[in-house]
């Protein structure tokens, strides 16, 4: 029995993970333009749609330091998007109607920011899981933290072997429940 089929049978992370080499990961020194190009390299389906909506970011010492996703990139392109104000005494307001005012200036602003380093758009990593752990643990973390991708560590925790996504967990669960 291969490690993957054993993982699938016992519903372990290792049976569902995407190895590092098949998941987008980029150097932290790239600018956003290069990073987006790298993300768009990964396509699937007849219309060459984007396959992934997030990328891992690796530093010069081969350490995983963060990630960028579609939301973090778009938020970084214009500060008006999803403004979060620290120090507000109480409830946070939402201002979607203001898009009427700043919609025109968005493309002007985003052009200038496209050359910025990818680190400006990076967000912290979610909690990792280990490859021998149950996929239910990964699912629980995803649902608790509202995440769809988690980094997967080797059993000894020394390096990152890949990622596990909600889509693969979902498919595996549906396959079993639907028999």
């Amino acid at each position: 029995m291969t490690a993957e089929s054993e993982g699938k049978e016992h519903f372990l992370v290792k049976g569902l993970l995407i190895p590092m080499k098949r998941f987008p990961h980029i150097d932290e020194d790239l600018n956003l333009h290069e990073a987006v190009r790298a993300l768009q390299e990964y396509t699937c389906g007849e219309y060459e749609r984007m396959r992934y909506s997030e990328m891992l970011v690796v530093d010069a010492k081969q350490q995983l330091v963060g990630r960028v996703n579609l939301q973090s990139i778009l938020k970084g392109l214009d500060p008006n998007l999803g403004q979060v104000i620290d120090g507000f005494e109480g409830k946070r307001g939402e201002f979607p109607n203001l898009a009427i005012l700043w919609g025109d200036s968005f493309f002007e602003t985003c052009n200038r920011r496209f050359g910025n380093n990818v680190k400006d758009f990076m967000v912290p990593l979610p909690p990792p899981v280990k490859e021998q752990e149950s996929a239910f643990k990964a699912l629980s973390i995803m649902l608790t933290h509202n995440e769809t991708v988690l980094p997967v560590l080797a059993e000894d925790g020394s390096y990152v072997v890949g990622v596990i996504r909600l889509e693969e967990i979902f498919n595996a669960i549906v396959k079993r429940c639907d028999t």
Partner: protein
Amino acid sequence: MAEERSSQGAAAVDDDKVGLAAEIKEINWKKWIFMFVGIGLFSVVYFSPPWPSAFDPMGKEFVLSPQGKAALALFLLAGTWWVFEVLPIGVTGITIGVVQALFFIRPASDAFKDFMDPSVLFIFGSLVIGAVFTKVGITKRLAYKMLDIVGERTSMIYLGCFVVTALLTHLMAHTAVAATMYPLLLSIYALYGEGDRPTKFGKGLFMGMAFVAGAGSIITLLGAARGIVALGFFQEIVGREISFFELTFYMFPVGWLMVFLLWGFFMIFFKPEKAVIPGLREKARELNAAMGPLTRHEKLAGIIVLGVIAFLSLQSFVPALQPFNKAAILLVSTILFFVLGILDINDLEAVPWNIILLFAGAMSMGFCLWQTGAAEWLAINWLGFFQDAHWFVFVMAMAFFVLLMTNFIMNVAAIAISVPVSLVVAPYLGVAPEVIVFAALVTAGMPFLLLVGAAPNAIAYNSKQFTSGEFFAYGIPASILLMAVVGLAVILIWPLMGMPITVPTP
């Protein structure tokens, strides 16, 4: 079948050897240094031999009891921790209660009871009102409507934004107002056509909003917590109550005079580069249309808040309403918000305890200074500086002291130390206690020098339109303007309105 290609941007990343970067845990030296500076100051004062008594001009002796000395020590500790944010400000508030109880400065029941003093619950109620307005969108509607009214001239946009900011602070905490106005100002600035590059218009718009939020917040008890805190001390020390309406009556002309003077100030120092923002009016109309008609929740929230304000104001005119406590009346609005389903349990859970505990701690600190006799002892010692001075000099000096303090520490903390002390000094110099409290509240509300002075300053700074140095530099003339307005109020405006200014000296 899905096609896959490798990343071109993986620049020399070896896929089998990627580690997980360790979380960088830097030791926050500043935090630890100032934590121990605070503890050190406390220890030095607490364990020092008894301090000499103070004597007033009549020769009456004021002994500083060990508890009084400990109260001063505690203020030094809390002040240090607040200024340098050694701990979350609310936790420093808790520390104030804990130290009083464990070092026997005041009985635990007294020290902790202040944490739920009616004034603190009043603050809680006003924060809930802010949350309601944020949730139902009534404040946004007012702000968007303003854009439609003021049109496209930048000078009028300044004025419109300032007036709406000040108006909203009559109903909700100025921090919540700043947080509501900030995204709108960002959007207006986006239409100015300079990207996010700093301009005079940007500086004026954001700094002006922060300054005016302060100026407006002095007008009613709902604008900031400092008002109800000061009135709490006033009642404890003077034995009289200042009503909701009375505060607004005296503060209204001063606050609005300051708003319009600040508009002039910003038109002089930050005259916008462009006279108009073309297309703004059309977009403002679109924005108003997108808001749709008033919702049921907006109407209910408006009626409840205005009802509470009307009741609180009528207390000054209808003797039958006077016995009702301000906090209890305000909290009726809190209960109604939940009864009518405008707020739910999640909104209650979102109450910012850090802020509530800060005010609770400040309240406990002020009462501690007063009840242990430390405030009297300090006041009598300071009296020497003013013994031969005109009463006006004393009032202005006290207002100036609060102005400096409010830039460094939370304005309630500035109020907690200065109001009890000033109220003791006042009768010796023939000054009525009302003028002390009102003058202190005017300057406490307007920290124009440092970003840490008030949350609206920090919110405005997020715009990256100005540096902290610029804020300080332009804050100096603005603060001078403020002191001139305080002087005018003390000498002319308040006496004309009938406020007692001087009393016979003992």
